[in-house]
C-alpha cells in the first residue's frame, strides 16, 4: 500500500479512527533528514500493507496537529494505536530501528 498523506482536516478520520495501527511521519520540504528517511518510509508502507497504515504529514501545511503532539523536531515518527500515540522516534534512523518499534506495536 502506498504512503497516505494526511492533513489537519482528515487526521482524526484517517489516523485516530483507523482500525489498524498507524505510523505518521511528520516532515517538511526544507528538512534534509526528512528526505533521507523518505525511501525507508515508502518501503515500510509496502512491507506492512494491511497491518500498519503509513502516513505523512507536512508540518508547513498543517500547523495544528504537530502543535497538538508537541513536535519540535523533524522528522518525527509517531505510532498511533486505537487513536492514542503509543511510541515516538525523533530524527532519521535506520529501517531496523523503526521496524523494532513496529514489531512491538503489532505484537
Amino acid at each position, binding site marked *: 500500500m502506498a504512503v497516505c498523506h494526511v492533513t489537519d482536516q482528515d487526521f482524526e478520520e484517517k489516523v485516530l479512527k483507523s482500525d489498524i495501527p498507524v505510523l505518521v511521519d511528520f516532515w517538511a520540504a526544507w528538512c534534509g533528514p526528512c528526505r*533521507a528517511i523518505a525511501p525507508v518510509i515508502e518501503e515500510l508502507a509496502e512491507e506492512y500493507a494491511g497491518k500498519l497504515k503509513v502516513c505523512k504529514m507536512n508540518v508547513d501545511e498543517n500547523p495544528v496537529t504537530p502543535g497538538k503532539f508537541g513536535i*519540535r*523536531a523533524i522528522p518525527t515518527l509517531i505510532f498511533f494505536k486505537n487513536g492514542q500515540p503509543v511510541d*515516538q522516534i525523533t530524527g532519521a534512523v535506520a529501517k531496523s530501528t523503526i521496524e523494532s518499534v513496529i514489531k512491538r506495536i503489532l505484537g
Partner: protein
Amino acid sequence: MAEIYDLAIIGGGPAGLTAYLYAARARLNTILIEKLSPGGQVLVTDFVENYPGFPEGLPGWELMEKFVAHVKKLGFKQKLGEVTGLELNGELKRLKLAGGEELLARAVIIATGASPNKLGVPGEKELTGKGVSYCATCDGPFFRDQTVAVVGGGNTAVQEALFLTRFAEKVFLIHRRDQLRAQKILQERAFANPKIHFIWNTVVEEILGQEKVEGVRIKNRKTGEISTLPVDGVFIFIGIRPQSDFVKGLLPTDERGFIITDCEMRTELPGVFAAGDVRAKACRQIITAAGDGATAAYMAEHYLSGA
C-alpha cells in the same frame, strides 16, 4: 551462488558517492549500501558555500542530489540497508546486513561517515525532539521568535547559530573556551550579528524542562559560577564521532574510533579502504571526503587488477 561484486561501498555521503563514480567509470561491478537515502551529513547542512564550482553556494541536499544524479548516469546500484557485520580477512569479503542478508565483494570501501556528539548531560536524551536538537535546518523553524542556545564553537556551531537567527529572536552561543575555532569568515559574521550573544568559558551541565526545554544550567569554567539560562531550544554542535562500531576489532582505529589508513586510503587489510569522515585525519570537509572517495576507488581498482 550469490553475485560477487568487485567492490562494495558502505555509506552514501560525499566519499561513498564519489568512490562509486570513479569505480563505475573504471567499470568495476560496484554496489553501494546506505541505511538512509544517499547524502550523509551534508543533508543537514542548510547551505554549502565552500564547495568549489558553486560560487553562489547551494543547499546541502541540492548538492547531494547532484552527486546522486551523477552516479545515476553510470547505472547506480544501491541497496537500502545497514551493515552489522563484516568478514574482511580473505580475498572475498562478506558483508552482513541487518535482516540477515549477505553480500560478497572482492574489495570494500568504508565510507560510513560520522554522527554528532552528544553532550552527555542530564535532560539531553529525555528532551531530544522536545527542544534538544542536533539539526538546525530541521528544527530551527519551530523556534520562531523564541530564544535558543547553541553549544559549541567550531564551524558547524557558528554556521548553525547564524542560520538560527533567521527564526529565533535571540541566540546564545555557549562555548567552553574564550575564542571560537570556526573559520574566520564565519566568526566575522557571527560577531556582526546582533541576535547572537556569546557566553564564553562556559559548559552546559544540565538541560532543564519536563515536557519541553525550559532552560540550561551552565557553569563558568573560570569562576566556577553556576547559573540558569532560560531558553526554548538547545542546539548541540560539539564535534562528531565516527560511525565505525561495526569494524571494532577488525581494523585499527585511533582512540576515538576513526579508522586508520595510509594516505592512499588503504587500511591494514588488503582490499579494504576507508574514505571520508570515518577516517582518522585532520580536515573533514565535503571536498576532502570526495577526494578520499576518488583515491579509495582508484586504489581499489589497482588492488583488483593485481597492480
